[in-house]
């Protein structure tokens, strides 16, 4: 609970963050940039969880716990994604998503 800042303002901020992430995910073709975009999306949702918990149900802890859970999962997912990207780079010497279309055949 931050004095002087209402919940609406913070939710607006997280929505902006979320759509920035979406935009990055849709427009970037570099896999690393796309991964960063996904992280931004996740972070915006984590902030949502914490803020809603603190502003609406200050006596509970579930939102905060859930936020920590998401951070852990996101870390694992990042590790996995980076491993895939490294392997992909070894295969095709590129991290451009436009060149990874062979699975459609």
């Amino acid at each position, binding site marked *: 609970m931050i004095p002087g800042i209402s919940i609406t303002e913070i939710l607006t901020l997280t929505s902006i963050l979320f759509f920035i992430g*979406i935009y990055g995910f849709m427009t970037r073709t570099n896999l690393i940039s796309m991964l960063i975009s996904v992280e931004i999306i996740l972070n915006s949702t984590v902030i949502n969880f914490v803020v809603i918990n603190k502003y609406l149900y200050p006596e509970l802890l579930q939102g905060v716990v859930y936020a920590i859970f998401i951070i852990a999962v996101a870390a694992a997912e990042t590790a996995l994604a980076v491993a895939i990207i490294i392997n992909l780079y070894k295969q095709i010497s590129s991290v451009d998503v436009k060149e990874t279309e062979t699975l459609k055949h």
Partner: protein
Amino acid sequence: MNISYLFLIPIIPLAVFLVLGIFNKMIKPTVSGWIGVGGLTATTILSFYAAFQYFFVTGKLDGAYQTFIEKTVWMNFTDTLHIDLGILIDPISIMMLIVVSTISLMVHIYSRGYMKDDPGYTKFFAFLSLFTFSMYGLVLATNLFQIYIFWELVGVSSFLLIGYYYTKNSAVAAAKKAFIVTRFADFGFLIGILIIGFYTGTWDFETLNNPEGAAIVNWASTSFMGLSVLTWALILIFMGGAGKSAMFPLHIWLPDAMEGPTPVSALIHAATMVVAGVYLVARLFPMYYFVEEGFVLHIVSYVGAFSSLFAAIIAITQTDIKRILAFSTMSQIGYMMMSLGVSGFDGHEGVGYMASMFHLFTHAMFKALLFLGAGSVIHAVHSNYLKDMGGLRKHMPITNITFLIAALAIAGVPPLAGFWSKDEILVAAFENSMFIYSIGILVAGLTSFYMFRLYFGIFWGKETIYAHKPKESPRSMTIPLIILAVFSVVVGFIPFSEYVTADKLGFVAHLNYPLAATAVLVGLTGILFAWIFYKKENNLAERFANAFGFFYKWASNKFYFDELYLFITRQLIFKRISAPIAYFDKKFVDGTMEGIGNKTLVVANKIKGIQSGKVQDYAFGFISGVVVLAIVFIYLWTN
């Protein structure tokens, strides 16, 4: 009597088959020949020992021969209906054991010489052992289903051995023909077995054949189209037997089966497998006799009589020596069937049954000898045709004499084996019906005529100049000939009627002098005619053939039965029935299925562009879906 050691009799040939079959390439031909002969010698000794034990030591109880059974249940259907595997010892199975083991041993020894230097030597012995195993299983079967299993196994071994020279088209065609024709007959056999299983609730020979048993006493309980169902079943079972035994009209495979190696013809298509049909009827003889008062036996006797006459007429006109012998086999089996058909059951009434089994026994000996002798001739001359032979008596003395003994035996000249059994058959026919007897006596005359036509044609007749001077066969081939010749002389003196009878009690058979004299006279007349026609080269035979013209041509083409069958199958069944069904299947059944498949493929081709493989496209689709869902939910909840 402890009979469990008799399990070894079928198992030893099976083991030999497995060893020779699995280690085919590793065993040297000489070794594989000895393995085959060794295994067969062991089973032959066991068979003779069992026969001695049974007939002279432990078989009799109160004057009647007992039946010994040892079996295990293999498949259970109900309390009474089950398929057993086991062995059944009674006079006819012991007699068949002797026949199969003796002939098979002789053929094994003979094959060591005949098949020498053949590339498939080991395989040949493996197949021979497989056949011997199946035949032992067949004769020792305790129930209808077991006999059926081994029945098919002998069919398969026969198929394999007829098609042994598989690079020859005619051999392949003959093997297929034999298999298809006998399979067709076995279809009837199987239905008969199922009917018997359904209506009597058992397949056990002992239960079925018991004259006071439920199966025989209640034969009239269910009827179908004016006959008892059991009668129909027995007719169908006889159909199976007729197929295996080459009875008219299912005989067409036997002459073609001569494409196989000659030892095979001697073993399978003369002495053992082809008499399985006779054995089957004899095995179920009490049923055949008591159900519908012997109605089916009339069919058996007329089919047998007709086949024997039919085959004898064809045999006179053939020029391939093995085919002459094949038709002679068919004719003699017809004799056995005829004799079974006219037989009674008790005491001297059952002389037909006894005579049939007796003839089966003696015929196996001299017909195997004839085939092996013919093989020896073919081995020396390298041709199957009479026109390439003549005057061989000087080149092949042992073959000549043994062949002459066999020919005299089959012609029924006393005191050789054929005389005794043929005489009993004619007695049985005479006591039953004059018509059948006259066919029998006519066939006896024809038999001695065509047999001596063959003998004179090979060993006398014209003095052919041979490209390679023919010489007597090696000892491995002549020794079986000599042994079988001895058997052909002596087996007639066995007092068969005391050992093998329908009621198992035995009786003393006496020679019926007027009938015997008539038969011998007719046989000698046949020989005399053959002597006049064929001893010296002359054109008498040709003039006679021309005089009969049309009939001769008809008979020499086997009465066009092959062509008739081809017409029925190719023209009628294939073209009129099978082809439209195949068309329907291809166009409609397959067409529907293929249409569904093709349409799916077309649709898939059209929509596969959606899957671009670009991650952004998928992400866009996913996110727009989420947005749409979000809008929908917001709309619903804000109402």
